[in-house]
C-alpha cells in the first residue's frame, strides 16, 4: 500500500513538473502578448535588389529615430504576397504591381524609392573587368543558343582579350524576383525570339541555366562556378567582388552599371503611370542617353493605404526618400530624382491609420 502512495506521489510529481514548465512558457508569452508589435518597430519583406541599401537604412534610422526596422529579403514576389496577406507593414518589389495584384492587395499603393542597375556578372578566370556584351547575345545565352565563351559573337566585341574555351553556365533567379522582371524586360527589347518564346515576368520558363534563390544566391553560385554568368543588382557584384559586363545600349555605346549610366537611363521616363510606375529599361538612342546603362530599374515600396503603423511608416518612407538616399552612392544606388521624391510625398499623404 505504501508503494502505491509513493508511486502516486511520483506520478503527480512528474506530471506537475511538466505542467509547471509548460505553464511557465505559456505565462511568459501571454504576459508579453498583451502588447502588440512594440511601438517602435516596422516589419518589411520583399525584393533582394534594394536589400543592401535597406540594410544601411536599418542601422542609420534606428540610430537617428530609435525605430527598429526589420526586413526579410525574400524576393519581390514574396514582398507582394506579404503585403497582400498583411503579414508585414511594408513590402518591396522591383516589379510594379499588375492590376490583378492591386485588386488582390485591396488597398495598396506603390511608390519608387530606390534607383539602381542590374549588373550582368561573370566568372571567367583571368579575364579583365567590364568585358563587353550585347542584349542579343545575352538573350541567346539564356535561350541556350550560345553555349561557350569563345563564341565568335562574343569574341568579336572583345578583341582585347582571348575568350577561353569554356562552357557558359547561365544563372537565373529561381524565386519570384523583380530583378528577373527587370532583366527579362530588357531581353524582351533586345531579342524578338526571347519576347515570343519566354517573355518577361518575375518568374519565367528559363530555357537554359541553373537557378539560385535570391540575389545573394545568384552571386554565390557565380563566385563558386567558373564560366558562370548571372544577373543581380550591381551592389552584389561589388560586395562579392565579381566582374560585370559593359552592356551595349541603343546608342551603340557599351555602358557600365555605375551612377553615370544610371543617371542617364533615369531620364528615359519622367512620366508616372497612374500607379506611380516608371520604366527605364533600354532607353532609346539619342544624345541624352549616350551613356545610359540599359538595364536600370526603380524599386518600389508597397504600402497599405490603411495601416495601423501609418504613424511610423510615413516618417520612415519620407526619410528613405530624402536623407536615406545619401547612403546610396557608396553602394551604386543613384539618389532618386526630385520629381520621384515629390510624387512619393504626395502618395504618402494618402496613407492613414
Amino acid at each position, binding site marked *: 500500500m505504501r508503494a502505491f502512495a509513493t508511486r502516486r506521489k511520483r506520478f503527480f510529481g512528474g506530471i506537475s513538473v511538466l505542467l509547471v514548465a509548460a505553464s511557465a*512558457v505559456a505565462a511568459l508569452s501571454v504576459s508579453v502578448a498583451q502588447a502588440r508589435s512594440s511601438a517602435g518597430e516596422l516589419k518589411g519583406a520583399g525584393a533582394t535588389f534594394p536589400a543592401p541599401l535597406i540594410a544601411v537604412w536599418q542601422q542609420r534610422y534606428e540610430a537617428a529615430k530609435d525605430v527598429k526596422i526589420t526586413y526579410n529579403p525574400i524576393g519581390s514576389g514574396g514582398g507582394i504576397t506579404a503585403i497582400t496577406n498583411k*503579414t508585414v507593414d511594408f513590402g518591396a518589389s522591383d516589379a510594379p504591381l499588375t492590376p490583378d495584384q492591386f485588386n488582390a492587395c485591396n488597398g495598396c499603393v506603390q511608390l519608387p524609392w530606390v534607383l539602381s542597375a542590374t549588373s550582368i556578372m561573370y566568372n571567367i578566370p583571368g579575364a579583365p573587368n567590364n568585358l563587353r556584351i550585347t542584349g542579343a547575345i545575352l538573350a541567346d545565352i539564356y535561350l541556350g543558343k550560345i553555349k561557350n565563351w569563345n563564341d565568335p559573337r562574343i569574341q568579336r566585341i572583345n578583341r582585347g582579350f582571348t575568350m577561353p574555351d569554356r562552357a557558359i553556365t547561365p544563372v537565373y533567379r529561381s524565386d519570384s524576383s523583380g530583378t528577373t522582371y527587370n532583366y527579362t524586360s530588357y531581353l524582351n527589347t533586345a531579342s524578338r525570339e526571347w519576347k515570343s518564346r519566354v517573355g518577361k515576368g518575375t518568374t519565367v520558363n528559363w530555357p537554359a541555366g541553373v537557378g539560385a534563390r535570391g540575389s545573394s544566391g545568384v552571386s554565390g553560385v557565380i563566385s563558386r562556378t567558373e564560366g558562370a554568368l548571372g544577373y543581380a543588382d550591381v551592389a552584389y557584384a561589388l560586395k562579392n567582388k565579381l566582374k560585370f559586363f559593359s552592356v551595349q545600349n541603343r546608342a551603340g555605346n557599351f555602358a557600365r552599371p555605375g551612377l553615370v549610366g544610371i543617371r542617364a537611363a533615369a531620364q528615359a521616363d519622367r512620366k508616372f503611370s497612374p500607379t506611380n510606375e516608371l520604366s527605364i529599361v533600354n532607353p532609346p538612342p539619342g544624345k541624352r542617353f549616350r551613356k545610359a546603362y540599359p538595364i536600370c530599374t526603380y524599386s518600389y515600396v508597397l504600402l497599405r493605404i490603411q495601416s495601423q503603423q501609418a504613424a511610423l511608416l510615413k516618417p520612415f518612407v519620407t526619410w528613405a526618400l530624402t536623407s536615406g538616399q545619401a547612403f546610396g552612392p557608396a553602394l551604386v544606388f543613384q539618389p532618386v530624382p526630385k520629381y520621384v521624391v515629390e510624387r512619393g510625398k504626395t502618395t504618402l499623404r494618402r496613407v492613414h491609420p
Partner: protein
Amino acid sequence: MSADSNTSQIFRTERIGRRKLVNHLVEAAATVSALLAVAVLVIVIGSVAKRGAGAISWDFLTKTPVIDTGFGEPQPSGIANAIIGTAIIVGIAVLLALPVGVLTAIYLNELAPKRVSAVLSLALDVLNGIPAIVIGIFVFVFLVVGHGQSGLKAGFALSILMLPMVARATQEVLALVPNSLREASLALGAAKWRTTLSVVLPQAVGGIVTGATLATARVAGETAPLLFTSSLVSDEINTNPNEALESIPMFIFKSAEQADPALHEQAWGAALVLIAFILITSLLARAFAARSRRRILGER
C-alpha cells in the same frame, strides 16, 4: 519451409571452397556497408561539429543577428532570437500534443471497443504518414492566409506532427502495464477512471515522458511547417506567440542559401546547437526509457 529446398544443395560439400569464398565476400560487403554508414555519419556530424564549433560563443547564443553592411564596426551576431523562438514554438506544440496524445492513447488502449480502436489507430497512422510540407500548406491555407503568421500557428502545425508520435508511444507503454494491476484495482472496487488515472497511468509515466521527449526532439528540427507559419520574422528577441518568431531550423534554412561565408558559419553553429539539443534529449529519453521499462517489467 524454404530451408528444406536448399538442404540438398547445402549437402554438397565438394563446393565448400567456393561457398566459403562467397560467404566471406558477403560478410565483407556487410561490414563495409556498416562502416560506410558510420563514416557518413561521422562526416556529417563531424562537419557540423568542426565548422559549427568555431561559431559558438557566448555572444552567439545570447545576441541577435546583425547584418554586416560594411559601415562602422562589425558587431557580434547571434541566434538568441532563434533559440527563444524555437523554445516557445516547440513549447506550444508540446502543450497541445501531449494531453491530446495521451488521452487518445488511453481511449484506444483502455476504453474503446476493439473495432473503434482499430479504425482510430488507422487514422493516427495515416496522420503520421502525411508529409510535414502538406501539414504546413494545410495550416497556411487554413489559418495564415489573410490573417498573418504567428508562433501559435507554427506550434499548432508542429503539434499535428507530434500527436501520432506521442499517442503511439503512450499506447505501447500502456500495453506494457500488466493487466493484473487493472484487475486488482477493479476487484477492490475502484472505478474505471480511478484505475486508469491512479494505477495504470503512473506506471506508464516513464514511457510517456520518454515518448514525448523523443517526439519533441524530432519536431524541434522540422522546417517545412515553419516555412509557412513563422518565416517573416524580426531580428529582435520576440516572445509574443501572436507574431512570427524566428526559429533555429528556419535560420539554418535561410542562411544556407546565402553567399556570405559568415552566414554559413553561423548556419553551422546553429546546426550544432540543434543537433546537440536533439542528441542530449534523445539520449536522456532513451536512458529514462530503459530504466522505467525495467521497473515496469521487473515488478510483477
